[in-house]
């Protein structure tokens, strides 16, 4: 299978998968349990989720490693097992996709605030991401997605760690923005323009946004990215913002709506479209159809 960079270079639009946590909970992940521990305890579940997304038509399927950095695993007493967890998760996803999709390692926030706002040093956070990135690369991840970042410095450390550990593995880096009366900012105050600059300087092969917004806001965010960078753009919206209902939390965007907004993303020239919270295999199937109808960028 051709690699991510080659496919981006020829203008292909790639479909990434949807949410992980909800699918794991539906398969028995207990409330309060560490989702990444499943790599050790129930790799069969991770394999099945990967298979579900590959069957739905995703080109890119994640390993269950979002919270797999040693710093993030530490509160569960699993910090020292980070390398093992990341490796087992990549292997499980690889078995699940069975050659149908590329497997990416997900790297989410460390859960710590960097100095001077918090007590974590840059060196400590870089070291933590390095352990994770090395394990993902050694296990054969086809790409690394640095995701859901709100602090530009932390995001850059994660990208750097990935690029140092495995220069040949493509890195996609996405941040989470809030709509404010003054435009889009992350909660740490990062603009789209600054995100582009910082992530590209750190070596990201694609930049963009995931989580925090439904498709409508994501189309606006995507337009901002496209106006500010030549680097390929990745966009992974939530299925709208959650609303309460008698039956539980409900995300408002059905697969059809998401796919219709995905056409706007593709028209803008977005290179990778996928889903975040609230999305599932049906959303991915709808995105697949939207992309296939359109073809290349």
């Amino acid at each position, binding site marked *: 299978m051709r690699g991510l960079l080659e496919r981006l270079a020829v203008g292909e639009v790639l479909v990434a998968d949807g949410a992980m946590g909800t699918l794991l909970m539906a398969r028995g992940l207990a*409330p*309060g349990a560490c989702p990444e521990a499943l790599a050790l305890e129930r790799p069969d579940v991770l394999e099945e989720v990967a298979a579900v997304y590959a069957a739905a038509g995703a080109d890119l399927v994640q390993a269950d490693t979002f919270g797999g950095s040693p710093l993030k695993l530490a509160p569960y007493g699993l910090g020292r097992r980070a390398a093992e967890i990341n490796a087992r998760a990549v292997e499980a996803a690889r078995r699940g996709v069975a050659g149908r999709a590329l497997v990416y390692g997900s790297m989410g926030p460390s859960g710590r*605030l960097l100095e*001077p*706002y*918090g007590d974590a040093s840059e060196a400590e956070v870089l070291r933590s991401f390095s352990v994770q990135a090395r394990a993902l690369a050694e296990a054969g991840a086809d790409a690394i997605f640095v995701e859901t970042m*709100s602090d530009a410095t932390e995001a850059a450390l994660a990208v750097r760690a990935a690029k140092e550990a495995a220069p040949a593995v493509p890195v996609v880096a996405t941040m989470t923005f809030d709509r*404010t*009366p*003054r435009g889009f*900012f*992350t*909660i*740490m*105050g990062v603009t789209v323009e600054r995100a582009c600059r910082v992530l590209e300087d750190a070596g990201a092969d694609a930049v963009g946004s995931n989580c925090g917004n439904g498709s409508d806001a994501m189309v606006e965010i995507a337009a901002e990215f496209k106006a500010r960078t030549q680097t390929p753009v990745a966009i992974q919206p939530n299925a709208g*913002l*959650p*609303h*309460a*209902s008698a*039956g*539980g*939390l409900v995300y408002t965007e059905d697969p059809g709506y998401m796919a219709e907004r995905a056409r706007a993303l593709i028209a803008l020239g977005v290179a990778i479209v996928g889903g975040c919270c609230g999305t599932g295999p049906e959303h991915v199937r709808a995105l697949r159809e939207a992309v296939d109808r359109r073809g290349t960028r």
Partner: protein
Amino acid sequence: MEILREIAESLGRGEDRRVAELARAALAVGTTPKEVLDRGLILGMADVGERFRRHEIFLPDVLLAAKAMTAGVEVVKPLLAGEAARARGTVVIGTIQGDLHDIGKNLVGIMLKGAGFDVIDLGNDVAPERFVEAAEREGAGVVGMSALLTTTMPGMAKVVDLLGRRGLAGKVRTIVGGAPVSAEFAREIGADAHGYDAANAVERVAELVGAV
């Protein structure tokens, strides 16, 4: 008084050492510790909360202001007599059992600390009994609960109910928040307050302890 305004402004810029110096200077010229706290530090933090809500500043500025607040509180706290030595009282916070989302709750914790409250953060996935036990143990005036999932919201009602059965209703006040949580829901379960965002939560907690 000029120096109190300086304290508030310096706090807003996140100057922790300067805030501590100014607090000491204010005490040296006869300002009472209570005035330094209420009309310097707390006023400054209230302004930070307001600017955060207006998106004029972001989390880093709030975090630095909270550090400056802490530096100032450390100067005056030993001098506050009796009851007031607990600065503004203790708040127990956590996300409800089954809920792993803690960004909103953490933000409330940071801003409560910044506003001079002692904060006991129980983390996420907290069982109703633990909220109640912690409130009793710590002598907390307020319990704050957060949920992002509607499936976990009934846990909030359990905490309110447990406090009532332990005879703590009215002594330990409750505030709820989180994306799916409304003021209406708060009323339905008998919670004392609802915070619609982090800054609002701090204001409502201040009202609950009667220390505006």
